[in-house]
Each structure stands twice: as C-alpha cells, then as structure tokens.
C-alpha cells in the first residue's frame, strides 16, 4: 500500500538546519498494523505527518497504492485525507465548540454526505465506540478515554483505508489506553491498515511489526506476527 524510498525532510531556520528524515525507506502492506518507535527527535512524527499528507518531503518518493503522492497539491492532499486517511492524535484534537456528535459528523460534511445519511452513519459509529450516550456533550465534559474514543470514531467514520495514530494512548491511563488499543486492533482485523507512532512497548505489542528509528532513519524492524 505504502512505499517510501529515500525520503528526506529538513527543517531550516536562519541559523540552524535540522535533518528530520535522512533518506528513509520503508514499506507498509495493506492490512498491516505497524508501530514506529524511537527516541524523541528521531523523526517519527515527521514521518507520520508526511504519510498523512500534512507535510511535504524535501526529497524522495512516496507511493500510495502505486501512485506518487509526495508532491500533491493542497487540493489533492485534502481529497486523500478526506476519503483515505484517518488520524488519531495523542491530545485527541477534538473541536471544543462542537459536541461529540458534531465532531464525528465533521468529516462526512467535508465529503459531501447528505444530512439524512450522515445521521445514520454517525450514530452507528458512536454506538460501535460505545460513546452514543454522550453524543450531545462537549469534549471538555468527557474523560480522556472518552475523548479518545470520539477521536477514533471521527477517524473511522469515512471508512478510511489507512489510520495514522500518533501516540494514541500518550495521555491516557493504562485501562483506557488498553481499551483504545483494542479498538485499533479490532479496526485492523476488519481490514484497516494502521501505522502507529508510540513510545510504549506495551502498545507496540498490539502491532504486527515494529519499525525502530534513529536520527531520521530506520534502524531495525521486528516482526511480531
């Protein structure tokens, strides 16, 4: 599904140049659950941003289902994010002014789904995430675990092929963290490809394969399944 070859990303200020990704190469097959691990500053989040088409690489190739997407324009990237990719963040990143229902509904609005259809889809997803009873609450009224379940619901509501998770349990206690990991595992078993950045060895064990990074490059790969 994903093939990255010689990917480069350099951050430049007036005085300092930081190489975040140093000719990194990797592949992810469809249906895989891959964990990316490494110390702070090794380039994990940068890699995830490029995979999610939130950022441009400075060099290298990024093939998504055989199509080069590295230098897609903003409109095409937006289309991909709408239809193909779902995101789950460490700090949940829900919109505080919208209710749970409205947060989950938002991707459907951007993909142009009619109002009558949206209701059915959102309710199904909320039910699946066991957060239906809180649909009219605002994010600040929910616990961390509940917020992350809402974030997962929002990520899956458009049936994306790929989910990118950036330390999804980083702000959660162990019980809630395990619940969220189980949700991701269930999604993966239903066919969704998952690439997860994590510091947690415990969370990484839910994946099929662990890729370890250092200084912008992959150093090892451990296959678990």
């Amino acid at each position, binding site marked *: 599904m994903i093939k990255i070859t010689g990917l480069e990303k350099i951050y430049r200020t007036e005085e300092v140049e930081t190489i975040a990704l140093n000719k990194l190469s990797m592949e992810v097959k469809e249906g895989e659950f891959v964990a990316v691990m490494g110390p702070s500053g090794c380039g994990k*989040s940068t890699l995830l*941003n490029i995979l*999610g088409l*939130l*950022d441009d690489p400075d060099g290298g190739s990024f093939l998504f289902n055989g199509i080069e997407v590295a230098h897609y324009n*903003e*409109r095409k990237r*937006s*289309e991909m*994010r*709408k*239809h193909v990719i779902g*995101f789950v*963040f460490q700090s949940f*990143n*829900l*919109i*505080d*002014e*919208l209710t749970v229902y*409205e947060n989950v509904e*938002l*991707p459907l*609005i*951007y*993909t142009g789904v009619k109002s009558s259809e949206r209701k059915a889809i959102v309710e199904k997803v909320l039910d699946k995430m066991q957060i239906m009873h809180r649909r009219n609450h605002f994010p600040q009224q929910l616990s961390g675990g509940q917020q992350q379940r809402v974030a997962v619901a*929002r990520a899956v509501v*458009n049936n994306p092929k790929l989910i990118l998770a950036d330390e999804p349990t980083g702000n959660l206690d162990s019980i809630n963290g395990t619940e969220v990991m189980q949700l991701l595992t269930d999604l993966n078993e239903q066919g969704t490809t998952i690439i997860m950045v994590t510091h947690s060895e415990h969370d990484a064990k839910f994946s099929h394969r662990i890729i370890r990074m250092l200084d912008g490059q992959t150093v090892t790969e451990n296959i678990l399944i």
Partner: protein
Amino acid sequence: MFSNYLKITFRNILRNKTYNFLNIFGLVIGITCAALILLWVEDELNYDHFFPNRNNLYIVKDKQTYEGKTSVFDATPGPLAQAIKAEIPGIKTTARSTWGDDVLFSFADKPIYENGRYVDAGFLNMFSVPFIKGNAATAFTQLHAVVVSEKMAMKFFGSTDILGKTLKVDNKQDYVVTGVFKDLPENLSLKFDWLISFKIYEGQNQWLTQWRNNAIITYVETEPRANVAAINKPLYGIVQKRNPENNAKMMLYPFNRIRLYNSFDDNGNDKDGLIKNVRLFSLIAWIILIIACINFMNLATARSEKRAKEVGIRKVVGATKQRLIVQFISESVLLSFISMLLAIAIVLLVLPAFNNLVNKNLTLQLFQPLHLAGLIAITLVCGIIAGSYPAFYLSSFNPAHVLKSAKIKTGSAAFIRKMLVVIQFSASVILIICTVIIYQQIQYGKEKDLGFKKDNLITTWLRGDMKTHFTAIKNDLIGTGVVENVSISNSNVLSMGSNTSDFTWEGKARDKQVLITIEGISSEYISTQGMQLKQGRAFYENLKADSNNIIINETLEKIIKNKNIVGSIINWGNRKCTVVGVVKDFVSFNAYKPADPLIMYANTYNANLMSIRLKANVNLTTALSQVEKVIKANNPGYPFSYEFVDKVFGRMFKAENLIAKLAGIFAALAIIISCLGLFGLASFTAEKRTKEIGIRKILGASVSGITGLLSKDFLKPVLLSVVIAFPVAWWLMMTWLKDYEYKISIHWWVFALVGLLVLLIALATVSFQAIKAARANPVKNLRTE
C-alpha cells in the same frame, strides 16, 4: 454546513465574551454612525425629488460683472417671465414668485403669521402642488383667492374641508380659500404654507413693471428634451435689449442643482456647494466603518493561536483552504449581522437627538427597499472586509505545525496588525485636528469685530401702521426705561440685499461699474446698531434735511480714493448726493468676507424692519414684555413677533457648526473604536507573554519596567500614526480654508496638543492591561506554562 457555522459562531460568542464584546461593540458603533450619516446623505440627495417635473424645471439666474468679478443672483426683472415665454422657443411655461413672505392671516380671533408666496398661476402646475381640495385650474380664477396647506387649514379651521371660507390678510382684505394642498415634505428648496396670485403683489409694487429692477424669482419649465443651450443664447441678453444699462445677463439654472450646488466662483461658473458636505460625510461614514472592520481584523488575527488547533483539525479531516475561508468569512458576516441588529436598535434610539443636531426629520424605514438594501449591504461589506484578512490568515496555517502546538510565526501578521493600528489612529487624529481647526475658524468668525453691536438688539417687522407711527412708538419704547434706542430700515443689518451700480463720482472711470449695497435708514440707525462713524456725522433727526445726503462705508471710501470724502458729491443716477459721514465697515451676510461697498440714504419709504436696542443688564423677559405692550398698543390687530440679531448671526454659521459638531462626534467615536481595538490587542499580547513576564519578574523586573515594556510596542504605531496624520490634516484644512477670505492661521500647537492627547489616550488604554499583567503572580504564570 451553514448551520455548523452558525453554531460555532454563537458558541464562540458565549465562550469568549470579552473579545466578542469588543468586536461587536466596535462594529455596532461603526454601523450606527454609517447608517445615520447615510440617512442624512439620502435626505440631501433626495432634496426636491418631490417635484415630478424637476428635470425640466429651471430658475433664472442673473449674472452681473463688476471690476472683473462676476456675481450671480436669483433676482430678476418683473417682465422677464412673460418675455421668455413669448420670445424663446422650447419653453412650456414660466412663473414669477416672491421670496417667501410672513403675512398675517386672521380668522375669528386667530391672527397668525404664515409663510408663503405670491406666484403666477403657472407655478401651481410647474411644481405639481398636491391639491387635496380644489385644483390648479380654478385656484386663481378669483383675484383675492388663497390656497393653503393642510397644516394651515387645521390651524385656522380645524378641518381641511374649507373651500369657500375666507381668511383676512394683513387685517385688510378677505381672501377666499380656493384650494387646500397636502403638507409638503421637509426636504424641499422651496417651502410655503399659502400661495396667492402674483397679480396682488404686482398691484402693490408698480416698479415691478420695469426692466431696470431685479427683484423677484423667475421659474421656467422647458419642454421635455428642450435644448437648454439654445434657450440660453437669446436669454443671455434679453434684459440688455430693453435696458442697456442693466448689467444683468440671464441664464437658466437647473432646479435639480439648487440644493447641492448653486454656488459660483468669481467668473460666475457653477461650483460645488453643499455637495461637498455630502461627499465629506459619506467619506467619514466609510472611514468609521473601516476603522471598525480593522478592529475586527486585528482582534481576530491576534486571537489566531486560539483557533489554530481548530484550523489544523479541520484540515486534517478534509477541509480545503477555500472551505475554511468561506467558514471564517461566514462567521464574520454573522457577527456583522448581529451587530447590525443592535445598530438598528441604537439608530432608532438616537435618531431624535441626531435629527435635532442636523435639523432634519430623518426616519429609518426598515421595510423600505432602499433602507433594507443599504443595511444588508453594510452588513455584508463589513462582514466580508472584516473577515477577509483573518480568513486568509487563519486558513493558511499548516496543520502539522499547529497540531504539535508549535508557536505560530506571527512576524508578518504582527506587522500588518501594527499597520492597521496606524491606519485607525491616523484617521482618528486627522478627524480630531480638523474638528479643532473648524471650531477655531467658527470662533474666529463669531468673535471678530462685526462693526456693530449684536447683543441686546432685536428686530421686528413693520406691520400695519407701525411705519407711520414710528416716532410715537420710539418715544413710548424709550419711555419704558428698558430701551436705549429704536430705528427703522429696509432690512436686517446682517442681510442687506439691495444693490445697484447706478452711482458715479469724480474720478470714476466711465467703463468702471461698481455694485454698491444701498440701505434706507432712519436717523437713529447708526447709534441703534452700535456702529461707529469714522468721519462726519449721522443723519439729522429730521430726515428731510438729509434727503440728498448719504453715508458711505470705509470700503467705498477706499474705492473712491478721495481724501476729502466728507462733503464730496456722489451721483445717484441724475441725483447729486452729498457724503455727510463715513461709517466703519460692518459684517453683513458673511463674517468671512470683507464688507461690500455701501451707501445708506435718509429715507424710510421702503423701510420694513424696526430695530430695538435694549439696555444692557435688563431682565430680558421683562423687557420684551414691555416692548410687546408698546407695540401692540400702537399697532393693535397684529401679534408681536421679534428676533434677536445675535441669533440671526448664529445662523450664519449653520453649515460650519454642523460640520464641526459632526466631525467632533465622529472623531470621538473613531478614537473610541480604535481604543477598543487597542485594548483587545493589549489584552491578548499580555496573555501571550505571560511566561515571559513571569520570568522577568522572578529575575527582578519592576512593575513599571514591565508596564513600559508591554506599552512600548503599542505606542510606536500610535506615534507613527500621529506623524502621518499631521501633513494630511494640514493639507485638508488648508484646502477647506481657502474658500474663506477671512481665515485663521493654522498653528503648530494644535497638532502638538492633539498628538499628545491621542498618545495619552492610547497609553491609558494599554496601560490598564500592561499593569494588570505586570502585577500578576509570576509563580502562577509559570505554573500555567
């Protein structure tokens, strides 16, 4: 999607009350000001639109050139209207009219002065007088007939069903009411409550049959699509054909231009009149709106970090930049709409006071298409202008950066915000400086030596037999002990309107024509008005002794250039007149122009006005009551009415007063809106620099040091705006003042004082937030971080 935006907007308002209050309040002030000004502008632009024929209506102007300078008057000869109709093709009809006369009407025990005109019958159709009883065809079939307004009918009869009833005019003659017309709207150049046939006026003033006297108004209605240039050709010399000595050249002037133009340069060319005010106030309306929109932009971009996360999330889940732009502009249009609703309420609340200020009767009609469209347009324009920059700025955030809580680089945005503050404060400083200078010019006019004493001086029209009983009235008035002196004359000292060029003197070039104001006076006139004689004497009490003597003013003395002016001869036509005195120049018509040459002659045949000088320090109410008793005793049957000359003088500054008041109010509002914005920006900056302030305090910074640090950044743009505003304000005021012959000098200290004032206001605005931030507990600040 729109309902999504609506929800976000309302929830944002509730979550961020201070910010939204500042935004909405600023927009409300801006929209309210713009709405009030545009109502005023609409009224001015609609002046005379009541008359359906206005595109074919003209007033005949009379141009006279003396010493290379052309003056333009509305006064035309009596026979002109008939001659135009008879001799010039393309004319549908003509009508003569007087200027507007206060005449006494009586019915039963009700004597009241009402204002109206003597007009030819053609006037009724030309101006589509809106009859509700009677009609134009039958209105003047009888000679002693009068048509009255609804208001006048109700005043006298309590009904409009009054055809055939009679009103006594001037206690002398009964007139039959042959028509009642609907009350005329306020915004008309000519107003009247009654109309009587011009034949009556002509019968009382036989000199109207002469071509040499320019004294009445001539209106012309052309055929539709008539060639006005072709009409003006024969019209130009129509007077000279009959009276070669009459300098007056005639031309048609469009009735449509009377209100907003009707002003002429020294070559007699049409130039801008009140239209300048219309343009000025329209510009001010836009400036105030833009200042309010700038506030919105600045506050929205300053708060951008608070919405950065939302922008990032929306982009992550698939929103395009265009979609986000639409969202943010929709939000600002919604805020603008809320502001508009509040502004409507405030406009309705303040409209009576505004009407009082501008002396109009403006109304806001929400369901009138133009008003509704105007309000919607203002809302949309404000919302789109105000929301555009923040929308483009916010929608350009990189989601990868903002979701990692990376600080948004605000370099260019901060610079733009500062420039917007510069624009706001520059506009405010310009408005304040202009207000001060306009006020100074008004005061200059009001306080200059008028050449006569206007205080405690009243005038009353000579009614009934007051003229013939003048000496008795004078003695009785002085006998009350409250009156110093009494005189009669043709007109009010501030509006001496009669003039002629029919004078010659030794040494005057044959081809030189000098237009001289002439005024018939009684012997007490100079002392009653408080004028000063430079040379010679006033007229004797026995006016007949001075029947061939004249008094001239300083201006005429300078023109004649005779060192022995007193005793010299000036020929008035064929009559030899001896100069017995020279009076110091005095103001008439315009306090900002030098006096016109003037001759006063000892004859009260044409006197219309009595001037009464009350003693200084008398109780005015008591004094007026005593004056009234004397006048009524000597002239029963006529209600007593009077006017203070200083009030008439005050009216001369009507246009300048209006500009000064409105400029002052809008300058204050502009500063308030600008300071609201500055307050908001200071608040957000203080919040953003919480950590820095905490660290500085721990390291030993004082409250005053931190206050200075935070304030400095805001005072620099204000200082820059002051520097930019100075030359612009100077240029504007020099341009405005050039229309005045007597004018103030613009002093540097006005600019310095205004600049200092604005800096202090800005300092006070930001220091509140700066001091609050500087006094906060540093531990608390850092714990938050």
